């Protein structure tokens, strides 16, 4: 034991000169390239922020940053610009999307790793991956032409019952709405979230799965005692990834959200998200300060993304603190 522990140490001492030389060539070049790339990413991000801030500065001068962000009215013909309706739309649609997509994605991932018969897992996995490759405009058109009409009875049902008590679910239900956008977003992020989650679940150590099986556990016991607890950090990372996609998604949302500058009281009202209002209005932004206000919305979108991701990472770290140590 002691012999074998000491021997490599001595060899290490002899080889030290050689190691140091290699470090100067390969290691250092590699490190330099990586450092340059890291710095470049940060610099590009910083320049983007600065440039869009300068371009939009007339808006901030007129309304103030806080005033712009919290302003709930957006009326270009009267030169009134407030970002809140779109921040609201982005948050509502993204969280609705996550609410629907995450449970479905977790179930799909569990199905593909633990629950489904082994010979079905391959084909099912490919089918889910293919969903991720469908262009978003296709989802948007399908949502507009098929999903929105199909969901009308459901929306009317909710609005007619729950909606009588809770205004958030109240009528009217014109079709294109926050709700439609949330559902489309859910369908769009299920593939990415389930693909990442499946990778996380599939990397559960075999020895842990076998421990459950050898103790007379079922596949469901494997999922609940080993796969889910060990994979929860990775699962939250997948959720963050899905959230990022939901916040930034533009075309599909623009097609089904109804494009209204006002804050809809109900989830079934038409609205706008930050990304969709920029895409929809930038081409025709001829009013005073209108282009500048849209650029400012871009900055807000970036900040919202950063804040939401930071919160999600914070939650993930709190979830995983301690329990994974020693593993």
């Amino acid at each position: 034991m002691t012999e074998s522990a000491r021997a490599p140490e001595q060899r290490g001492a002899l080889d030290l000169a050689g190691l140091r030389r290699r470090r100067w060539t390969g290691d250092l070049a590699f490190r330099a390239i990586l450092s340059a790339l890291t710095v470049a990413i940060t610099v590009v991000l910083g320049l983007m922020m600065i440039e869009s801030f300068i371009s939009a500065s007339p808006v901030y001068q007129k309304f103030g940053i806080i005033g712009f962000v919290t302003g709930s009215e957006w009326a270009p013909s009267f030169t009134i610009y407030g970002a809140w309706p779109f921040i609201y739309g982005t948050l509502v649609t993204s969280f609705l999307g996550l609410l629907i997509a995450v449970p479905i994605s977790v179930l799909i991932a569990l199905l593909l790793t633990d629950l489904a018969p082994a010979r079905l897992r391959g084909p099912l996995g490919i089918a889910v991956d293919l969903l991720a490759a469908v262009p978003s405009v296709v989802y948007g058109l399908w949502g507009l032409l098929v999903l929105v009409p199909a969901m009308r009875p459901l929306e009317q049902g909710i609005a007619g019952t729950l909606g009588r008590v809770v205004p958030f679910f109240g009528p009217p239900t014109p079709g294109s709405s926050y709700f439609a956008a949330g559902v489309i977003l859910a369908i769009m992020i299920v593939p990415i979230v389930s693909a990442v989650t499946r990778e996380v679940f599939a990397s559960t150590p075999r020895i842990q799965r076998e421990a459950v099986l050898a103790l007379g556990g079922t596949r469901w016991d494997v999922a609940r005692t080993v796969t889910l607890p060990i994979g929860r950090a990775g699962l939250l990372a997948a959720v963050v990834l899905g959230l990022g996609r939901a916040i930034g998604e533009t075309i599909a949302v623009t097609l089904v959200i109804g494009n209204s500058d006002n804050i809809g009281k109900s989830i079934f009202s038409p609205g706008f998200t930050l990304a969709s209002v920029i895409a929809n209005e930038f081409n025709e932004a001829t009013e005073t300060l209108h282009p500048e206000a849209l650029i400012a919305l871009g900055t807000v979108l970036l900040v919202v993304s950063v804040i939401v991701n930071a919160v999600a990472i914070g939650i993930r770290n709190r979830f995983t603190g301690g329990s994974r140590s020693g593993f």
Partner: protein
Amino acid sequence: MTIRSVRQKVTASPAPNEAEAVAIQVPVGEPSASAAGGAALGDVAITVRDLSAWYGARRVIRDVSMDIRSNAITAIIGPSGSGKSTLLRCLDRMHEVVPGARSSGKVAYQGVDIYDPEIEPAAVRRTIGMVFQQPNPFPTMSIYDNVAAPARFNGLVKGKAAQDELVERCLRQAALWDEVRDKLGHGGTSLSGGQQQRLCIARTLALQPKVLLMDEPCSALDPVATLQIEQLMSNLKSEYTIVIVTHNMQQASRVSDITAFFNMGPDRAGYLVELDDTRTLFTNPKNQLTEDYVSGRFG
């Protein structure tokens, strides 16, 4: 088929093919006079007949027939690739959980064919418990929950008091209670390697199995922890049938009553060379290969 009905089946059919088993039994010396200290060996607990196993197209064990006696420690030794672990995994149907793995032949516990399609693998694994090479406590669970887990999988105990009692009894049996009684809520992976392995043994004992399969349980442990596990096995022998795979011939000769020597054949599949009571196999083997192996000439 539920676990309970399998249990009934196991107990209700007292080895219908006992006569057959005895007739084609691999000789194990003279059971009454042989094994260590002259202790009488129990009846045949597990019969293995013409067992072969594959991973995909590759055959890893070929036509193994052997009897495993109850209340004795059977050691399986042999060089790498001789199919020792695969054989062990076939005894509690863990072999088949690896994708592409299959087996043929017969394995019977107390006369009941464990590969009968009527029998649920989980019920087999509950009766025939397994301890792995690497200690594998559940990393997200406390010490207490690790030991209670199998009871929860199988609905073995009702109520908190019964569960507390089960956890304490199994930890005591595994000689771990005194070390962990004040920190049952700590994570299972906070223990040392040897403690983790004893925790895994306690967890397997919580199944209340009849047979303990141990796949090189000490290979990841230091000598002190190894000794503790070996003592533990000797203590458990009176209540359990134990089968241990080991790389370590000294360990086999120290702890086991019966030793089976496996080797890798020319087709790269493992086969049983010789099975005898441990002292005979190590001192007076019948097969030249066994003699070469136990005297350290290969493997």
